[in-house]
């Protein structure tokens, strides 16, 4: 009996634990207790993941640059995040004399709150979501959108030109890329017919043979996935879209004038936003907590969710280690002249897919349309001035 039930038990271990804790309380309080436990889980797990990720990022970047990365604090530098945390906590909190004190203080708080709220709807495992909302996807993007205001608040209240430039850049960039971000998820919504994230995952949890039914394995799903990835990178201000904090241009952008723990809050918020957007990408396109092969379903679902998120994080780090930064106008051009039109075409293709019915034909048609669009738009749109590799002449 235990042999058959063991995977399921491990899978649902956190749920069981929550119920077990909750049953000590009167029944009226049980839902609240369960919610509080879930919140505690999110608040402890994701910042913990943040600490690990910062270390991994520094190590990974180091290895890409043929360095060791941090390896002084503890074995293999494992305590580096702890040291960083202590440093951030003990540093003096400098507020510029002319800064708008209240707004300056509120900005990191609001940002962090908004970012944390996004995790509420993420299904991190089977039955493991804090809120199962009908409009969960919308909630997620609403929380993402409200973080923009705090970015503006931070930049404006610092009374620093670099901060203001950074905030303007950040807000403009986030608004521009929010459109393709929403539209690409609309593609998934069209395929699923639901805005509820657990429903979206369940729609992808089936298998043909051993292969999963993830949306990334359909033509328009794949295209949407790529576009979502681009938009997500821009939305989280990661390289190559890290203009708002491009240190070679505008020092640190909107959080130039923050120090100590407030700076750490911006830092945490940036990484948490990265996790949440990776989580939503996983949920929308990579089957959320569903195992990649049918025979791997014995492994707990939450493991798969975090494994997929970490894959995303690795790609983020990888891109950061490789790519230089775009310029503001190129960034905008890229969003409005390439990503957005391509996503719209993708949306139409999704409609075609829905109406063509089963069969190999719709695969061919949809793929061809998308590839053609990609080629045409890659060659023409996007930039005003064409660029190409050059050859050089030599003087004797």
């Amino acid at each position, binding site marked *: 009996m235990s042999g058959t039930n063991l995977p399921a038990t491990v899978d649902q271990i956190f749920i069981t634990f929550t119920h077990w804790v909750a049953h000590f309380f009167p029944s009226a309080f049980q839902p609240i207790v369960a919610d509080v436990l879930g919140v505690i889980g999110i608040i402890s797990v994701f910042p913990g993941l943040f600490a690990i990720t910062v270390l991994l990022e520094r190590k*990974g970047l180091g*290895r*890409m*640059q*043929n*360095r*060791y990365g941090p*390896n002084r604090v503890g074995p293999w530098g494992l305590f580096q995040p702890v040291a960083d945390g202590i440093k951030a906590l003990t540093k003096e909190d400098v507020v510029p004399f002319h800064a708008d004190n209240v707004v300056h203080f509120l900005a990191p708080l609001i940002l962090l709150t908004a970012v944390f709220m996004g995790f509420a709807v993420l299904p991190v495992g089977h039955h493991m979501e804090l809120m199962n909302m009908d409009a969960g996807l919308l909630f997620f993007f609403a929380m993402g959108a409200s973080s923009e205001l705090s970015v503006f608040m931070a930049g404006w209240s610092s009374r620093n030109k670099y901060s203001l430039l950074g905030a303007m850049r950040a807000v403009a960039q986030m608004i521009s890329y929010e459109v393709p971000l929403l539209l690409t998820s609309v593609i998934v919504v069209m395929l699923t017919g639901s805005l509820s994230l657990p429903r979206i995952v369940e729609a992808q949890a089936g298998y043909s043979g051993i292969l999963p039914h993830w949306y990334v394995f359909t033509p328009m799903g794949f295209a949407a996935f790529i576009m979502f990835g681009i938009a997500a990178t821009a939305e989280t201000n990661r390289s190559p879209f890290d203009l708002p904090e491009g240190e070679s241009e505008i020092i640190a952008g909107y959080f130039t004038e923050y120090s100590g723990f407030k700076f750490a809050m911006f830092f945490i918020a940036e990484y948490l936003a990265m996790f949440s957007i990776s989580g939503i990408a996983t949920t929308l396109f990579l089957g959320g907590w569903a195992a990649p092969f049918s025979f791997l379903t014995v492994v707990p679902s939450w493991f798969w969710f975090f494994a997929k998120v970490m894959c995303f994080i690795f790609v983020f780090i*990888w*891109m950061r*280690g*490789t*790519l230089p930064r775009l310029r503001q106008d190129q960034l905008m051009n890229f969003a409005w002249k390439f990503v957005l039109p391509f996503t719209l075409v993708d949306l139409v293709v999704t409609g075609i897919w829905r109406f063509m019915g089963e069969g190999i034909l719709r695969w061919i048609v949809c793929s061809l349309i998308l590839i053609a669009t*990609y*080629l045409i738009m*890659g*060659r023409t749109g*996007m930039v005003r001035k064409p*660029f*190409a590799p050059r050859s050089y002449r030599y003087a004797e």
Partner: protein
Amino acid sequence: MLGEGIIKGMLETARNFAGSYVSKERLITVQYPEEREALPENARVFPFLVYDGPEWLPGLRCVACQICEKECPPKCIYIDKSADKKPDAAGKPQNYPTRFDIDVSVCMSCQICVEVCPFDAIKMDKQFEYSTDDRFGGLLLDREKLAKSNEYYHQIHPVEANEVDTRLAEERAAAAAKAKAAAEAAAAKAAAAKAAAEKAAAETPAAAPAAEKPAAPKPPTSGGGGA
């Protein structure tokens, strides 16, 4: 235009990422306090004073000619010349520095002092860990801290030290031969002037060091007097 270049670049970093785990050659970082690379023979950090023999003060080759003090570009050497003369390692009476300080916080390790020294008395050390919490006193090295034995010099710059030693030995031999010749000449002179008074015989020992003087390699013409 279609992202090939980006993918190419990403593959390159991926290759480096994986490569750094398999080939040690890619990681050129030296983990300093634990790992230390042997410094090359020519390495130079700060100057030190060479002494011959077991005792540092009498053995100092430096004769306080103050050329290095004058030539030092950042002017970080401070020398006080002695009023009296003491015999050096070879037994010859020489001036010596009563003070020889080098402010290594000013020193720029240029080796000019080594090049201009006519006596091979100052050489470059390889010791570089001078960190101290006493910014002024701790980095002002006096002659006792600066004095290092010739054996130490051989240890850190073997090839160069051998060259210097052979040259010095040759010079000393030449000087000794000259002195001997001079002494013999003087003795002959004395023998010839045997008839002369005993006064002349008493002068001979004094003449010997006088004859030695030109044998010393290129004494400073203006260096000592000008400083």
